[in-house]
C-alpha cells in the first residue's frame, strides 16, 4: 500500500497500518535525522519522536499539499533541524566543532543498496551545481544552518544566498527528474 493510503488509515487509529507505514518510512526518517543531528543517541530520540508524531497527527496530512513521503520527511527534517539548533544554542561544543570540521557530506552513514544508488545520483547532481549553490543548499539542509548563518559562513549577502538556494534546488530538480 502507498504511504498516502496508509496515512489515511493511521489517522483513523489503525495500528496495523502504522506498522506498515513504519516499514516504509523509518529508514528514510532515521537516516535523514542522523544526517542532520549526527549524535547517534539523539538521532534515535528525534527519529522516535517523529515517528510517534506521525501517529498522533496523521489526520493533519493533506494530500493537496504534496506527497505523503515528502510530508513525512519534511516533518522529520524540521524536527532534526530544531534539535541540532537547540543543541548548538546550548553550546554543545563538540557538536559544533564536528559541524565546523565539515565532515564529508555523504560517506558517514551506513547505507542500504537502494539508498546507495539514490545517493550516488544525488551526489552526481550536486556536483553539477556551482560551488556556491551546492554549499548554500547543503549547509542548510544537511547541517541545519539558517540562511543567515549560511550567508555569514560563505561571506555572501543574504539576497545572494536565497537566490543560490533556489537556483540550486531548481537545478537539482532538472537533474534528478529522471531518477524517481
Amino acid at each position, binding site marked *: 500500500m502507498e504511504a498516502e493510503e496508509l496515512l489515511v488509515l493511521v*489517522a483513523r487509529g489503525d*495500528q496495523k497500518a*502504522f*506498522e506498515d507505514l*513504519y516499514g516504509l518510512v*523509518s*529508514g*528514510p526518517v*532515521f*537516516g*535523514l535525522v*542522523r544526517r542532520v543531528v549526527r549524535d547517534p543517541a539523539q538521532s*534515535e*530520540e528525534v527519529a*522516535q*519522536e517523529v*515517528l*510517534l508524531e506521525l*501517529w*498522533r*497527527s*496523521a*489526520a*493533519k496530512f493533506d494530500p493537496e*499539499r*504534496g506527497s505523503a*513521503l*515528502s510530508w513525512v*520527511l*519534511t516533518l*522529520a*527534517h524540521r524536527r532534526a*533541524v530544531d534539535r541540532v539548533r*537547540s543543541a548548538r544554542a*546550548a553550546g*554543545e561544543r563538540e557538536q559544533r566543532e564536528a559541524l565546523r570540521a565539515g565532515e564529508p557530506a*555523504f560517506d558517514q552513514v*551506513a*547505507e*542500504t543498496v537502494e*539508498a546507495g544508488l*539514490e*545517493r550516488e*545520483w*544525488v*551526489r552526481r547532481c550536486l556536483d553539477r551545481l556551482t560551488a556556491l549553490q551546492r554549499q548554500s*543548499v*547543503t549547509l*542548510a*539542509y*544537511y547541517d*541545519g544552518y*539558517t540562511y543567515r548563518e549560511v550567508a555569514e559562513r560563505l561571506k555572501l549577502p543574504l*539576497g545572494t544566498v536565497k537566490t543560490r*538556494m*533556489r537556483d540550486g*534546488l*531548481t537545478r*537539482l*530538480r532538472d537533474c534528478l527528474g529522471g531518477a524517481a
Partner: protein
Amino acid sequence: MSLVGRLLHREDLHSLAAPYALDALEPGERRRFEKHLRDCDRCADEVRALTEDAVRLAWSTAAPPPLAMRDRVLAAVRATPQESAPIPEHTPQLPPHVWGAQPPPARVRARRPLFVPFATATATAALVVASLFAVQAGRTQDQLDAERAQSREIAHVLAASDVRTTSYEDAQGRSIGAVTSVSEGQAVVTLSGYGTPSNGRVHQLWLMRPRVQPRSLGLFKADTPLVATGLGRSATSLAVTVEPAGGSAQPTSQPIVQLALKSVGFGE
C-alpha cells in the same frame, strides 16, 4: 508601515520560499512566512515544488534504524492518543503492554496499571515510559508496591509541561537516561547494563554544578528508575559513581558515567 514599505516587505517575504523549503528560516521568520503563505499563491506553489526537491536530498540519506526502535515506537503508539481522537470518558491509563516488547506475566497484567494518567504525558514521555518499564516483568508483589509509590513521583515529572528527555549509551550498550523538568527541578534517571556492583557496593547518583561540591541524589536499587529532586537551573550534569554500601557523603571514585543536562534546558 508605508505602502512602499509594505510592498518591499512583501517582496522580501516572496524571496523566502527556498530557505523555507530547506528549513533555513529562524523561528520568527518561519512563522511570518507561513502566514504569508496562506494568502500568496505564488509562494505556496513555489514552496510545494521546492519542498519536493529538498526531499530528494533526504532520500539519499536513508539508513536502517536500530531494530529496538521499532518495538519502542510501536509500544508508544499503543499508549498514545491521536490528536483527532475524541476525548475518552475515562482518564486513559497506560496499558500493560507498554511495559515492554515482551508481554508481562499474567499476574502483573491483571493488576491495575501502575502508571500515569496519560492524558498529560507527552509523546516523548510515552517512549520513555515504554523503555523504563520494559524491565518490570517478573517483579514481586513488594517490589510492585514500592514501585507504585515511586511511579506517582515519576508521573509528576512526566506531567510537567516542560518534560524533556536525554540519554547516553556507550559502545558496550550500557546506558543512562533521564526524563527531566526544569520547572519542577526534577529528573527520573535510569541506569541500565551496569549490573550490580560487587561486595555490597552501590551505584550512587550525583548532581554536578559549576564550582560546587557534588550533591548526592540517591542510590540506585537494581534497575529501578531513581527520582532526583531539587535540581536547580545551574545543574550541569548527572554523574554515577560506585560507592561503599549505604553510599557516601562525597564521591570516593571517578564517575562510571556522566550525563550532560544542557540539551534539556539546565545549566544556566
